[in-house]
């Protein structure tokens, strides 16, 4: 019985934290509290935070016994996803930057410098 109760508490905590994170991100974006790349980083950080919250409180990823295979596959997948997304964006930024016809180069250059890629 105790287990069920703590389970319920888990879900409630997770739910509340997720709502807070969602609203925080929403308000930051809606009210334009920050802008540019900072906005991107802030919103994505909140999203990742919420991912962790749900992984812990909803998916109970931290509560595995034995060899932590679920967690290991999860980390492996995070690695793959990061390589794929960061790699693709880096490559495509480079290609775009190198191939834009002249009059657009300046615009791309600005974005390029801002983005830090």
């Amino acid at each position, binding site marked *: 019985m105790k287990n069920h109760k703590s389970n319920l508490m888990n879900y409630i905590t997770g739910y509340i934290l997720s709502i807070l994170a969602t609203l925080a991100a929403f308000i930051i974006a809606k009210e334009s509290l920050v802008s540019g790349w900072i906005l991107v980083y802030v919103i994505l950080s909140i999203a990742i935070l919420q991912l962790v919250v749900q992984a812990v409180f909803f998916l109970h990823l931290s509560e595995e016994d034995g060899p932590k295979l679920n967690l290991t596959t999860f980390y492996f997948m995070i690695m793959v996803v990061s390589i794929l997304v960061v790699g*693709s964006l880096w*490559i495509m930024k480079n*290609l775009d930057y*190198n*191939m834009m016809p002249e009059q657009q180069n300046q615009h791309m250059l600005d974005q390029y410098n801002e983005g830090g890629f």
Partner: protein
Amino acid sequence: MFGRLGFDDLPTELITIGGALSMVGGLIAVTAGLIYFKKLGWLWRNWLTSLDHKKIGVMYIAIAVIMLLRGAGDAVMMRAQQALASGDSTGILSSDTFQQVFSAHGTIMIFFVAMGLMFGLINLVLPLQLGARDVAFPFLNSLSFWLFASGFVLINASLVIGEFSAAGWLAYPPLSGLEYSPGVGVDYWIWALQISGLGSLLSGINFLVTILKMRAPGMKLMDMPIFAWTVLGSMMLVIAVFPILTVTLSLLALDRLMGMNFFTSTLGGNPMMYINLIWAWGHPEVYILVLPAFGIFSEIVPVFSKKKLFGYTSMVWAIMSITVLSFIVWLHHFFTMGGGAKVNAFFGIMTMVISIPTGVKVFNWLFTMFRGKITYSSPMIWFLGFIATFTIGGMTGVLMAVPAIDFQVHNSLFLVAHFHNMIIGGVVFGYMAGLTYWFPKFTGFKLHEGLGKLAAWLWINGFIVAFGPLYILGLMGATRRIDHYDASLGWQWLFIIAGIGVLIIGAGIATQILQLGYSIWKRKELRDSTNGDPWDGRTLEWSTTAPPPHYNFAVIPEVKGQDSLWTSKQAKTTTKQSTTYNDIEMPKNTDAGIKLSAFAFLIGFGLVWHIWWLALIGLFGVIIQTILHLTKDDHEYTISAKDIKLHEQHRLKGTSL
């Protein structure tokens, strides 16, 4: 009613008519034979609906061999065309047919031959090596196979109805887009790969779980045979990159079917993204194929050198670092697209880094042979051929990893020679060695040695004759995929030599077919007298009889350390006859996989030809069949301990029940 399908979609060129007729004729002949010998029911009950991993493995290999013949036929046509079509001569094929032929050759060889042989071998061997009764999800395994088979049917249907893609094996847009390829060819390509790719993805999940959850008690990860380690690496790659392929193909299909603009050159589409994504899948795919081949050699070399594998730990590290590194090299397939110096250099260097663990493996194999007692059975001949060709391929690979060099040899025949060095020298030689090595395990008799050695020798020499000239042609500035060239270039004699090389490889394949037939005919003489351990093996698969019973092991073996069979043979504690048997639960045969894949085929065929109602029937069929299968609980049956005991007594004596 029938979308864009009509009577004018039947083949018109002499060669394509021949292909279509042989396809249809073969199908009719096989069916008629089965009906005549009243084997249809037997085939259905004992093979097609079977969930036994060993039978599924055999069926994978059967399809792969059929496709190898078709792929090799394509290769002969290509070489014939290029040997003839110089100057005024236009050769034997039209440009369009030639382009379909090389697109089909690449697609078939990678997706249906190499993948088929790989999944076939893994299916046959992996559960036995791990001391398991089956794979983790036997039904899923059957489904994977049937999806693969359904892709196989679809790609062969393109030979009879319509056409195949003429855009190369990876179908770069915008050439593969609607604007430049309005026909059904690219659609066939997309859906054949999509369906069989889904099967590969499911297999990846299945084998990964099998390795991580189904090892015999006592077998730690670091006790696993190296083959199992390479399969682990390979399947990690499968689950990580096949979803990328699924998405990439889907996006191309959406462009073609729904007028989206992902990879079109107008309305903001970006074809470069396709090339980026397809290689993010495509490069790891090469390692998916070659890792199990490394594993096979890591099994063969110790056995035929009668010596423990040198540097097990280093091997494992090498495998895992290759697995991870292969994710961060994909850009080297498009240095020439014009990315910046930094991004090119980064991916180039990462590519070179992979050669370090690969080189380590080569040295470990050589030092396994060092101070051993080497017998040169045909698997070892394949191994020596592998070392020679793969090392050269590795070297040319490192050369091409330098962007400044790649600009000069990319898209040339030098590149073609390089990747055939890797795929034939690495993958094919490995799988052929594996097939020869494990053949007696599943049939109870060995393949004929003399013919086997001859076949290996023909393949190796044929390979050098076929691809040596391509390196030279590449350095001379000959590009790949040309159906015609000027006589003044002086290329023709090299193409002719390359053509002769392909014929020698063809002779090798013929010898292998002869070897198989002859061995079946002489199976009594070639019988494995040891009842399951003909090579004096070291790993668990050799501890059960040949062929193994469908439950593999009557009693699941307890494992202590690496090479457990060898250790127990050395300790002379081979007490196979454990007397306490327990009930065994085995999965029931089911045709659900066939039905699901048949519906998947309808979806594919419907979408290729724009027969929407057919695709819808397929879709509903898939949904309903899935629900029906998943909500049924009754998937297993029990073999009683008594039956097993009876069976075992006969089996161990080598008599049949």
